[in-house]
Each structure stands twice: as structure tokens, then as C-alpha cells.
């Protein structure tokens, strides 16, 4: 499968499991998209952004009246409105994102947020999980690592097999594919 096909398959499969796909040219664009999904007074979390990206997001948050958390998410287990994280890989076959979330704050930002926004570089989308077994093995072989495959928002069909979204995890998953 060529690259273009892989990316369109990723978009198609992710949409099928109720993930919302966006596309951005740059990181800055992707932040703008994420912020556009917020309402005023949202509390959002984006732990582990590095110094090159953090100021961008901070600026946008201030402009829009949004509170940005960077750590201590454990204090917010009642829930936050949005978590923004990078995803390490995308898997086209199933519309899955792979998020290595070794840090507790990063992990929690993908769990206790109502909306999870994942930023994914186009070049990191692979065709199938089996195709990237070596990369996954490297990722998961690190001691104390916590690697999550996330395919759509949290769901259950435990009552009468009726699908309901958002049991213990996010109610919505947005994936922003970044070109560069």
C-alpha cells in the first residue's frame, strides 16, 4: 500500500470507530484546531509538551480563557474537559493511535478527559500493527513503559448490547494529522 492509501485508510477506519479526524499543516495549526473545540472556561491538560511548543499553546489558552494544566492531574480525577497529547504512531488497518504514556500525567490526560485530542504526524502512520511489530517491540521493551493503543473513544455494549460511548474514558476522540 502506498502512503496516500495508508493515510486515507487510517482516516476512514478511525472515522468508523467514531474518532473525528482533522488535518493541520503545522503544530501551531493543530493547537488552533484543538482550541477551536473548546468552550470558554474549559480546563485542559497537556503534560509533557516541550519548550518549543508549550508557549504556543499557553498563548492560545490565555487568549481564549482556557485553563491549561501541565501536571498534577491526579488532583483532577473528577474530570477535565480536554487532554491534548502527541501520538507516537497511527495504525491504518484499524484507525488506531499508539500513545506511549509512561508519565502518569500524560496517561491521565488521555483517561480522565472528556475529549481527547491526539496529535499525529502523517509520517508516523503505518499500514498494520504487525507491519510495525519491531517498532512496537522497541517501544514496549523499555522498563516502566505504558503504551496505549487507542481506537476511538471509550465504549461499552454491556447493557443489552447497545453501544454507548464514554464509560470510563473520553467521550470523544479527535485525531489531528499534522503534515510536517
Amino acid at each position, binding site marked *: 500500500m502506498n502512503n496516500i492509501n495508508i493515510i486515507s485508510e487510517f482516516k476512514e*477506519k478511525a472515522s468508523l*470507530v467514531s474518532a473525528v479526524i482533522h488535518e493541520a499543516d503545522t503544530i501551531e495549526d493543530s493547537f488552533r484546531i484543538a482550541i477551536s473545540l473548546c468552550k470558554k472556561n474549559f480546563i485542559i491538560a497537556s503534560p509533557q509538551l516541550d519548550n518549543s511548543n508549550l508557549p504556543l499553546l499557553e498563548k492560545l489558552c490565555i487568549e481564549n480563557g482556557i485553563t491549561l494544566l501541565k501536571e*498534577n492531574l*491526579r488532583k483532577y*480525577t*473528577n*474530570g477535565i474537559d480536554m487532554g491534548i497529547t502527541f501520538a507516537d504512531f497511527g495504525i491504518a*488497518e*484499524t484507525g*488506531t493511535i499508539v500513545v506511549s504514556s*509512561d*508519565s*502518569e*500525567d500524560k*496517561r*491521565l490526560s488521555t*483517561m480522565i478527559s472528556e475529549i481527547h485530542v491526539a496529535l499525529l504526524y502523517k509520517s508516523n502512520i503505518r499500514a498494520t*500493527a*504487525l507491519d510495525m*511489530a519491531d517498532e*512496537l*517491540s522497541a*517501544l*514496549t*521493551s*523499555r*522498563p*516502566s*513503559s*505504558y*503504551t*496505549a*493503543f*487507542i*481506537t*476511538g*473513544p*471509550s*465504549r*461499552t*455494549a*454491556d*447493557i*443489552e*448490547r*447497545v453501544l*454507548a460511548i*464514554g*464509560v*470510563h*474514558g*473520553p467521550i470523544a476522540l479527535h485525531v489531528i494529522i499534522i503534515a510536517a
Partner: protein
Amino acid sequence: MEKLETIKDYKNRIDNALENQFLRSAMDKFAIAYRESRKNAFAGIDTDTLIAEVAEIKRNAIKNNDKLFEEFKSVAQKNGVHVHLAATANEANEIISKIAKDTGSQKIIKSKSMTAEEIHLNKWLENEGLKVTETDLGEWIVQLRHEGPSHMVMPAIHLSRFQVAELFSGVTGKEQDAEIERLVKVARKELREKFVEADMGITGANFVIADTGTIGLVTNEGNARLVTTLPKVHVVLAGIDKLLPTIKDALTIAKVLPRNATGQKLTSYVTWITGPSEYLGDNSVNYPSQSSMSALSPESTFNKREMHIVLLDNGRRKIASDPDFSQILQCVRCGACANVCPVYRMVGGHTLGYIYIGAIGLITTYFFHGAKNAKNLVQNCTNCGACKAVCAAGIDLPRLIKEVHTKIQDEHGHPLKSLMLGKVLRDRKMFHTLLRIASVAQKPFITTQNISDKDSSPKRVSAEEPLYLRHLPLIFFKEHNFRTLPAITKVPFRDRWKSVKANTKQLKETNKKSLKIGIFSGCVQDFVYPEQLEAGLKVIQRLSSNFNTDNYNEHNNKQLNITLEFPMDQSCCGLPALMMGEKDAAADVAVQNVNAFSEYELDYIVTLCASCASHLKHAVPKLVNNTVAKDFADKVIPFSQFVNQVLSYEKQHIKKFDNNNLPLKYNKITWHSPCHLCRGLGIKDDPKQLIKATGNTFVQAKEEETCCGFGGSFSANFPAISREILNRKLDDVENTGADLLVTECPGCVMQLRGGALNQNRKFKVVHLAELLSVKS
């Protein structure tokens, strides 16, 4: 001591389940929806190859289990994990409660784990005064109801939204609407508090990966992620059968698991955890715990949770060393073998499993929970093979169910009924004498009249020929009256054979290709439906004498010269003995049959009974492990395949239809595929091609491959379930609008015709041979 459930208690539970209307309709909807979603989920994937790959991965992992354990242990320990090996269920319970004690944990949250159910972990921990909360929605619901799960993947599938609403109203102390979205939110809110408060989290593991010391968790709700993130202590409980060499193996299994379980391509979450992850919470629980006892350096445990992995043996190592049963450890717990099981569909999981549900549960209950919990359960199987056909790990489930049945009887005594059956079947002469006596003894109970115009049972040798049992002799109970049972014939096929053979033109032209055919009748056709055999032979003869008349160009353009043989020493195929757990008797009968046919130098052994065919082909060479038996089995061919492929019925006939010579007798014909034909022998198209070649209109029933509920002794043991499976089947047939139902097994005819007559259904039921024998 727990009271032992008698077979009567068990049947009472079954009756209750059958009366539960919600359960019935929920199970039914699920059975139909599952089939469709599984098909979609596997679209574009070579399912058989993938399943074979999974089976191979698991088989090797089981073989190398000890090595994988050592490898895992050493890597995981290096990563800071405490690795425990528990020999028994109690040992595992003790280890886990000690971890709780040592870490000062009081409140425990769990994500779904069948292994924890297997060892009754919750009960144990609660007895120790600990507070345990299940966080998977379905598990939480059944926990609140003090029940076990009724499905391995969907624990609360037996409950309605109203029952859940009532339950949640009680928990929250406030009236809750029976609206599913809302109920899910209630659970989200209630359980979030439990996550935050918890000291310790317990999960299972779908994969335990040796080379990296990683565990893999496959979930949808996201609860396992919180269970492994919020509490200070994480305990993993997994069977040693979950060990795999690499993540690649796990990814291959993950490709099948959700697709087979719920028809999902992938679950919402698959989580890979390699050693204790970062923990930034309160350290007031003892830290590092007493149980750590390890030489872990302070840096390596700083800001890390405490992680334990308890690998459970509980008999698995012993199973692994058994050449036949080791394959049950290949199970990946997808639950599919319940999803497709006709019995599960009628009675649900609580009656078709002890802890583990469905076909695999019928087997593993014996190993994990003892003969006392397995002995009734293991009989509750029609031997339809639907489970085997979907098993994610390629396990030969129906056969192993019978093996367990035999094992339990060998260890704990054979019931008189099955002993007698074994004894009688072993002695062909005695068996046949008894059948002849029964044919006389049934006199007060029989009728020689056709029951209705839908009665497709032809009059036999004379007007006095008994047709049906008018009412059942008193030894049977009322519950068997759901179908009209046929009477035993006055003149069995073996007594008719001489004249049948005499009427056969045995052309001996040297330029013809010769085929020597042996007929295997099976007991039902020999003693109950000899007319089916007569019809079949008529078809064979007609086709062979026609063979060259259409200039048909196969067999090197030679005409066909068929010689028919009916070895008189043949007996019952032996399947009924196996079904009753009498394996030794089945083996004895198999030898007798192999010997009966061996002297004839046959080209084919044709049988008109799909169950006999499948048993002779697959079970006999296993029961009689020699080349003669293998040779015998290789020659066995079911009627439809023989007629269509060897005698080219379809091609001969299609030529005729070109001449508009259509013998349209029926409006529409539909087909019931006997389990042992479509799954047992993989024959799906031949019979339908034959039906179409008669020129009649064929309509396909939606569930043509679903079991009819006969299953030999199954319908005698569990008449209520058999009746319900049959009703569903008859509805499905009636929905096609067909006026004729054709099948290829005398057992199915007995069940389907008996039900159709009893309920005055709108269609007749015949054996395929009877349809084809009507000259076109």
C-alpha cells in the same frame, strides 16, 4: 459443604432459563447479529489461515511454557515486578490477599478477569475483610447482583435495561430511568469515586510477553487503564497459558480476538504495560511494601507503583502435558464458541457453564472445577460442531467435550443407561434382536395411518406397516411429546436387501468402468427409515444406467458399471455410544464395522446418514488407529457428494432441463444442512446443486446450517432445549415459504418431520434421496 447439583436440579434450572422471555429474545438477537458482524469484521481476511496461525503460536507457546515462564520472570524482575507462580487457586488467592495485607490495601478495584472468576478471588478477598469493586460495567452489574458472568466477554448479556435501572436505583438511592446512555453515566460517576479511593488494582492479562516482560490488556471501556494508573499497587493475575514469546505473537492474536468475540476489528484500548509505571499519588500505603523483599534499588522504585504478577497454574501444566487435551490451553477466551452454540442460544451462560461458558466451559469446568461441577454440564451439547467452526484457536471442541464426558464416567462410574447402551451396541446380534422385539412390542402404541396430507412418510411394505408412535410408551415423559416419532419398521433394510440386490441389474459389460460400492445404512435407516435407503439405491442405479446415454464425457467416456454390496455384519456407526460417554464401546463397534467392510475391496462406502458419514470418516480412524481403519474412512462418502460428484447427477440432469422437461412437483424447496454434513464433512453445495437440478425452485433458509436440535441422545436427555431449538428451526423454514424441506440425515428427518407433523407446519420433510428418486 456446597450441595451437589443433581441432573434433575440442573434440568429445573434449564426450564427456568427457557421460560425467561427476555433472555430468550436477547440470546436470539445476539446469535443472529453476531453471525453478521463476525462476517463483516473478517471481510478481506483469510480467516482460516489466520486462525491456523494463532493455533500454531499458542501450541508452541504451550509446548515451551516453562522456558517462557523463566524468561518472563527474569525480564520482569529486572524491570522491578514481583513475579509469583501459584500452583493452585487457593495459593493464588493467598498470594493476592497477602499482597493486600503487606501494602496495607483495603479498597480494591478490579477490571474484568476470567481467571479471577476461576479462582473465586472476590469471595476470598471479601472474606478477608477487603472491599472489592468490579469496574467493568457488566462485571459490576453482576457483582451487585451477586451473580457470576453469563458470557466471557459480555458478562451481563442476560439482563435487561430495566433490571439494570432497578439495580442502579438501589445503589444510588435514587430512581434511575431505564435508558442505557443514562445508566452508563451513572456507572461512570459511581465508579470514578471507587477508582480514586482504591489502594490496589487487580487486572487479568490477555497476553504475557516473555521477551520484554510486558503484559497486554484488551478492553473497551477504559476501566483497566484507570485500574492500572490510579492505585498504588497493581496485581496482575493470569494463567500461565497466557505466556507468549513476543509482542508480534500477541498482535497476531489481537487480530482475531475482538473480531471473533464481538465482531469488532479492534477494541477501544489495547494496553501494554512493562513493569511498574510512574505513580505520583499518595505514598501512605506501606512503601516499599514488606512483600517487596527485593534488592530493588531506591531509584528504581522511586515514583513507581508496586507491581505484582501472579501466574496461575491450577492444573494447566498437567493439561499441557496431555497430548490430546493440551490444545484447550490454546483458548484465547474470545467467547465465540458460546456465541454460535445452539444450546447457549436457548439457555444462556449460567446454564451452559460453571465459570467458563460455552463449549470451552464444558471442557475446562472438569479440569478447573472438578467432575462434580462438570458432569451434568458436559452432556448439554448436540455435537453440532458450530463451536469448532468459529474457534479462534482451532480447538477440536465437540470431540473433546465427548472425551471429557467419557473421562468423567470412567472415573466416577457409568450410569446404568449408558452402560446398557454400550453393552447392547457392542453386540450387534443382540442389538438387532432387541430392535426386532421392539418393533413387535411397540404394537399397542403405533398407528399405520398417515397423519396428515403433509405427511411425507410413504407407506411401506404393507398396509400394516407401522408408521408412527401414536403416543409414547410410559417410560417416556410428557416432555418428549413435542414431535411425532416414527415407529420401528416391520422389515428392516437388511431383510429387504436380498430382493433389492436381486432387482439390481448388475450389468457386466467389459467396456464399462466398474465401481464397487458398499452401503453403510446406520441403525436409523436400517430399522426406521429403510425407504430412504431404497430411494437412494434407486437414484444410484438410475444414474449409473443412464451414465453414457447423454454422451457424458467423464471417466474416459466409459459407461459405468456399479456393483452394490451391503455387508451384513455392519452395525451402528458408534456415534450414539460416544455421545453417551461410552468411548470403549464406540471403539469396539468401530472395529466391527471396519472388519465388516474390509473384505469387499470397495471403491466407495456410501452412506445416506450425514452423522454416520462424519463419524466414520473422522472418529473411526481415531478410535481404531490402524491402516485398515484409515483406508475404510477414506472410502466413506456421503450420498449427496457421491451422487453429484461421482455420478454427475447435476450435469446429467441439467441437460434434460434444456429440453424443458421440468418435473415441477413443488412450489419451493428449502434445505436443512445437517451439522455433520456442512461442518463435519465440509459439504455445503452438492445437496443444493442436486435440489436445483431437479428443476424445482430452491429457496435458501436464513439459518440453513443451524442445528435442528436432535443430537441423538441429546434430545432424549434435554428434550426441552431440543424442542426450543427445533421450533426456531421450523420457524426459519416456514419463513422461506417452501412447501418441502429436504435434508440428508435420518436423525434430522426424525426431528424435523416429527416437529412439522406435530405442529401442523405448512411443509413436508424428506430425505434428499427421496426427492431425487422421483423420476424426472
